[in-house]
């Protein structure tokens, strides 16, 4: 595109679809440059950080779960770990394993939802999973089976898949017997084959290559693929304690807007989620998952954001393998939860939500009442990176028809599996760039 080209093209998507929550996009390109970019998240704020003040710490897992119907387990886990740190609680190793299983269920459920219902229709010229089923029923049914299994795992531990009730500070209110967990085994075995087929199916999508200089951020654990624990790591050398969010990241306001973006201090945008986790923890996936992932022909690690949907499928496979391992290993803990005695203090934790690192920080008083809460969800952290990806599309946008350009932008946003309900409770409603 010659720089003398002063053509202007405006892309408007009044209502982003097949994403979680309510948002819109307004983007203007002039002369090959983005001159106006507004990712408007008009989802109304719900003020969770404010309404948590004055509530009992023990209520935090139940209340914060309500931030997101798709990833309630992530909110429960970040809340529980942060508050257990505040109260100096150490959980039983068997409970730790069960929490990992709980998270496997949510990753499977949330990832299968995104891969099949939100992302895949774009690659088949379909508007939904329902029309996609008319073209490729077998893949859709396989996706629904995977999703159902993820929900079944969460339900086994929490009673239901949306806003499960079993997780509490110190562990679970009740833990399953060995045979109750073994009931999942047969489905997990079959799901392994489904997940392998799913990885191959997704890798066959016509994924664009938009390799860029991106900083990927995820937790990294000494010997596990990260879920509830680990140190903050990045592909540009970050290495910090998992509760030291403020040491490495800052939320800042963009000029002429009420926008809060997160960035790595002194650097800029960063990328959270399955692709970041795979890039930083490839060696923790284990030989079976690595072999299937390598077999797709996609190089790992890589910096093409559009391979994120394949990374998501790879994580479904990993989570199924890991769930099976935990089910086989499981011996019930001595007690479902350790006793939690409130004391005044502060606690912070990051856990790996399906969409990436989810940070919670609390201050509590001696009675166990929450005095302050801060929650930084992955989608709000990914926003600056989503915008960077959209800016990079400018030359392509000018070459395409308006309808195709709009689709291009929507796919670029959807690629992050954004959860707008999560992010807008904490962020501004509109981003404007001068």
């Amino acid at each position, binding site marked *: 595109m010659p720089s003398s080209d002063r053509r202007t093209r405006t892309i408007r998507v009044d209502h982003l679809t097949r994403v979680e*929550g309510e948002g819109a996009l307004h983007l203007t390109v002039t002369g090959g440059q983005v001159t106006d970019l507004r990712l408007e998240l008009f989802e109304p704020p*719900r*003020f969770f950080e404010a309404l948590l003040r004055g509530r009992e710490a023990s209520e935090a897992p139940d209340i914060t779960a*309500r931030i997101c119907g798709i990833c309630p387990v992530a909110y429960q886990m970040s809340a529980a770990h942060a508050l257990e740190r505040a109260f100096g609680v150490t959980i039983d190793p068997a409970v730790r394993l069960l929490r990992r299983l709980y998270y496997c269920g949510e990753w499977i459920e949330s990832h299968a939802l995104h891969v099949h219902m939100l992302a895949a229709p774009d690659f088949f010229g379909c508007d939904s999973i329902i029309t996609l089923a008319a073209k490729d029923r077998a893949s859709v049914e396989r996706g629904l089976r995977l999703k159902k299994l993820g929900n079944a795992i969460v339900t086994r531990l929490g009673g*239901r898949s949306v806003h499960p009730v079993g997780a509490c500070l110190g562990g679970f209110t009740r833990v399953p017997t060995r045979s109750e967990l073994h009931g999942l085994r047969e489905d997990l075995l079959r799901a392994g084959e489904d997940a392998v087929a799913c990885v191959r199916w997704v890798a066959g999508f016509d994924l664009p290559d938009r390799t860029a200089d991106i900083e990927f951020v995820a937790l990294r654990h000494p010997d596990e693929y990260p879920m509830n624990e680990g140190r903050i790591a990045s592909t540009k050398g970050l290495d910090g304690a998992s509760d030291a969010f403020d040491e490495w990241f800052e939320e800042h306001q963009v000029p002429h807007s*009420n926008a809060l973006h997160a960035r790595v201090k002194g650097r800029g945008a960063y990328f959270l989620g399955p692709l970041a986790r795979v890039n930083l923890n490839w060696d923790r996936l284990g030989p079976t998952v690595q072999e299937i992932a390598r077999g797709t022909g996609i190089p790992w690690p890589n910096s093409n954001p559009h391979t994120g949907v394949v990374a998501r499928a790879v994580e479904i496979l990993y989570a199924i393998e890991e769930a099976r391992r935990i089910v086989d290993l499981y011996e019930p803990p001595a007690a479902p939860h350790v006793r939690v005695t409130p004391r005044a203090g502060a606690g912070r934790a990051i856990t790996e939500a399906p969409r990436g690192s989810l940070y919670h920080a609390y201050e509590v008083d001696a009675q166990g009442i929450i005095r302050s809460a801060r929650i930084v969800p992955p989608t709000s952290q990914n926003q600056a990176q989503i915008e960077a990806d959209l800016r990079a599309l400018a030359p392509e946008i000018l070459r395409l028809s308006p309808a195709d350009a709009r689709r291009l932008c929507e796919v670029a946003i959807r690629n992050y599996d954004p959860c707008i309900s999560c992010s807008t409770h904490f962020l501004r409603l509109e981003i404007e760039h001068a």
Partner: protein
Amino acid sequence: MKPRIAVVKFASCDGCQLQFLNAEDELLSLAERVDFARFPEARSRERAGPYDITFVEGSITTPEDAQRIVRVREESRYLVTIGACATAGGVQALRNWADVEAYKRVVYPSPEFIATLSTSTPISEHVRVDFELWGCPIDKTQLLAVVRSLLSGATPSLPAHSVCLECKRRGHVCVVVARGEPCLGPVTRTGCGALCPGLDRGCYGCFGPADDPNMTSFAQLLTIQGLRAEEVTRRVRGINGYVAPWRETGDAVERQTH
């Protein structure tokens, strides 16, 4: 022509509309019987109204949404609220007891840009509602039962007795009697399957009030169990705290202490 269904969202977490997508075994066959004409989370194309059934998720918290719900009502033959937010204002209705300007300052560095109402209110405070489906989240089986009733021209009907009956039916040990746990089961509507007592904890009221809850004795029971006044208020002022019988009880207990 297939009945046209719309799923619309206000302030909420998406968990109730997710129950359509969580109907993994029924979704494809349901889609053969109805047209999901407007369902932005699941479908990128949208057909204009009117709609035969509109499922409304979320509460009204902004001036724009207070206007939007009126338009939604106009283009809906039958309007069903799904979940605690749409039916009772949701957990975000805790703002109704607070100073929203202070709330904004807690969350946003530039609170002046945030357009929000001082309250979070249920859909029924704004427009006529034909049926209310309770739960945080709603139960998938109840949702499908309501869809089936409406498709066959019948008025949906769901039980409104307390969780206690469901607990006894399932043979759960009573957490109040056996463990001394505070439990909202006696005043909460059935529908979840008595999940919390089944997992050894007290109910926290996701499904809203049962028919004719005896709130006076219930508040006394919590006091006998050793809860201080502010703890009693927190129990009833939770996920469905803004619904009349629970709101009034919480407020009354709070007044007694001042």
